[in-house]
């Protein structure tokens, strides 16, 4: 068994060890080992050239990662909280994501941006968001969000070996989760997984939402299938369609607002390609407000296991 945070650290260590082009930098990631204690020991082991602390300059961080990636390095950077991704957007959206295409495929941009995301930690509105949906409409960017320790390690290794810019979303509520470490060594980006097989209902989720969906499925006593998307872009729609063809019901669970969210995109894509298989389809998302601070407010805001179970009960009884 391995903790999620240690799985991330091990993936970084193994990739830095394996490939001299991999470098890792960010705010307080080296000497301090990261604010969520994900990366202790890497600096001591690999030295200043491979692992280093930077100024609190998110735009410089992303610009440096992009410029390094197009000239031979494979940078992994940490933008501490996903919310901070508003600052380096120009470099990621206008430079990194477009380079492969507008350069006429002269070169690619192998970089990874790790960030802690998600609510439930009482961090308030601007340390709790999941920025994946801010970026999912940008061609050329990949977006990955693992749900378990084993998956985190293999997916991060897949992200580092990918030749494209990848946003890697680590849910804060998963860092202390323990899980088996005997899965695949590397998971390529763009492949969803069936986290639980079932025939009555397909629940699609990412990241912590997968754990919540699995817990809800147990609680419901329902034969629910849970799909772990793993990546929001590119989206593995085939796995979802294959599941819906058997279950005929689709629930997308998104920790974030419904408007402009990934769940709406999945629902739309399933409607377009598999409408004939659908008896029902709906979304469980958050309120259209910023994420609140107070425990009573934030608990009510989050689409956790209980909320998923309640949503399924209510929807199925109404049907």
């Amino acid at each position, binding site marked *: 068994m391995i903790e999620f945070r240690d799985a991330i650290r091990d993936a970084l260590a193994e990739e830095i060890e394996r490939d001299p082009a991999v*470098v890792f930098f960010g705010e307080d990631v080296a000497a301090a080992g990261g604010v969520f204690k994900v990366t202790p020991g890497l600096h001591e082991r690999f030295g200043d*050239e491979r692992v*280093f602390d*930077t*100024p609190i*300059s998110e*735009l*410089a*961080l*992303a*610009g*440096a*990662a*992009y*410029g*390094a*990636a*197009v*000239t*031979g*390095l494979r*940078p992994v950077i940490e933008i501490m909280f996903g919310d901070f991704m508003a*600052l380096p957007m*120009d*470099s990621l959206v*206008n*430079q990194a994501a*477009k*380079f*492969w*295409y*507008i*350069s*006429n*495929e*002269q*070169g*690619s*941009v192998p970089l990874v941006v790790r960030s802690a995301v998600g609510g439930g930690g009482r961090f308030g509105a601007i340390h709790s968001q999941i920025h994946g949906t801010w970026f999912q409409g940008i*061609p*050329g960017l*990949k977006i990955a969000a693992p749900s378990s320790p084993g998956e985190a390690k293999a997916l991060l290794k897949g992200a580092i070996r990918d*030749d*494209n810019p990848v946003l890697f979303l680590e849910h804060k509520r998963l860092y202390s989760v323990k899980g088996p470490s005997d899965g695949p060594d590397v998971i390529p980006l763009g492949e969803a997984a069936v986290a639980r097989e079932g025939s009555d209902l397909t629940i699609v989720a990412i990241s912590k939402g997968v754990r919540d969906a699995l817990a809800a499925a147990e609680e419901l006593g329902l034969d629910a299938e849970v799909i772990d998307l793993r990546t929001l872009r*590119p989206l593995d729609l085939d796995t979802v369609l294959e599941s819906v063809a058997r279950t005929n019901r689709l629930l997308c669970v998104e920790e974030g607002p419904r408007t402009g969210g990934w769940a709406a995109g999945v629902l739309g894509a399933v409607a377009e390609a598999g409408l004939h298989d659908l008896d029902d389809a709906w979304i469980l998302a958050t309120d259209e407000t910023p994420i609140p601070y107070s425990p009573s407010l934030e608990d009510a805001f989050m689409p956790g296991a209980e909320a998923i179970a309640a949503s399924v009960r209510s929807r199925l009884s109404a049907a």
Partner: protein
Amino acid sequence: MTSEIGTGPSVEAARAATPPSPPEPRWLDAYGRMLLIRHFENEMQRLFLKGEVHGTTHLAAGQEAVPVGVCLALQPDDYVAGTYRGHGHALAKGTDPAALAAEMLGRASGVCGGRAGSMNIVDLEHGLVGCYGIVGGSIGAATGAALSAKRQGRVAVAFFGDGAANQAYFHECLNFAVVHELPAVFVCENNFYGEFTPMQKVTGGRDIAARAAAYGMESSLVDGNDLWAVEEAAAAAVGRARGEHVPALLECQTYRHYGHSKSDPATYRPKEEVERWLARDPIKLTRERLLALGAPEGDVEAVERDAREAMDRAVEAALSAPYPEPGGATEFAP
């Protein structure tokens, strides 16, 4: 305080400090490269008016001595990042004028296959990591290229304008380059106008070069219309960057002959200011200097003839190239 446009004592001092140089062949080559940029910009303006160049253009005529002088101090495999006024950056670093012209015309033989256009040129073969349509973007790109360059024994140069000195990229990346000891040279082409606004009105302290000191970075104020002065300052900065991993800021004062972009007649610039700068046209100054240094007039004329012919060939090739076929693009690198 920065000197009054183009006439202040620091500019004069920089000019006077330039040592005499024999006209080695590389200076004649540099003159030819400057002429190529001038011809290129004039041709793009002409072709834009004919409807062959699309969207918009940002022409660098008048600013040729800066990229050519800086690139004289670079090795072929050093990195540069340019701006949306970047035709000169590409041509100075070695981009084929025919491939660049074809890109402007949206043709398949363009340096980016017609996918990029004027503001977004990439030419990795010649070390041009990109040109950036958003003010300051080149600064981040060059800072990152300097991370690679540090391992590779190379140097990375960012070209940017006076407007970029007020962007977060400038402040974050100059600091980043100092604390990480990067072989980066930040070259501000101060043409005294950020789009339509005089830089003095929007630049606190009015002195871009002086900002480096706040980050513990060395800087030079350079007459950007003097090819020799630019080369001298760049060679010193590049040498320290490569050898000691000490980054530097060069503020090269220059002037654009055209407006900001294709639709801008630049009426906001005082007539006497424009005349003063046109009298200091870097093409003219370079020609006079070459002759004063003893370059045979026949050699100078041969360079001029070659540049004209090279540009004519480039435009001819671009105009006869096919447009790219839609389709076949992949979102991701394999």
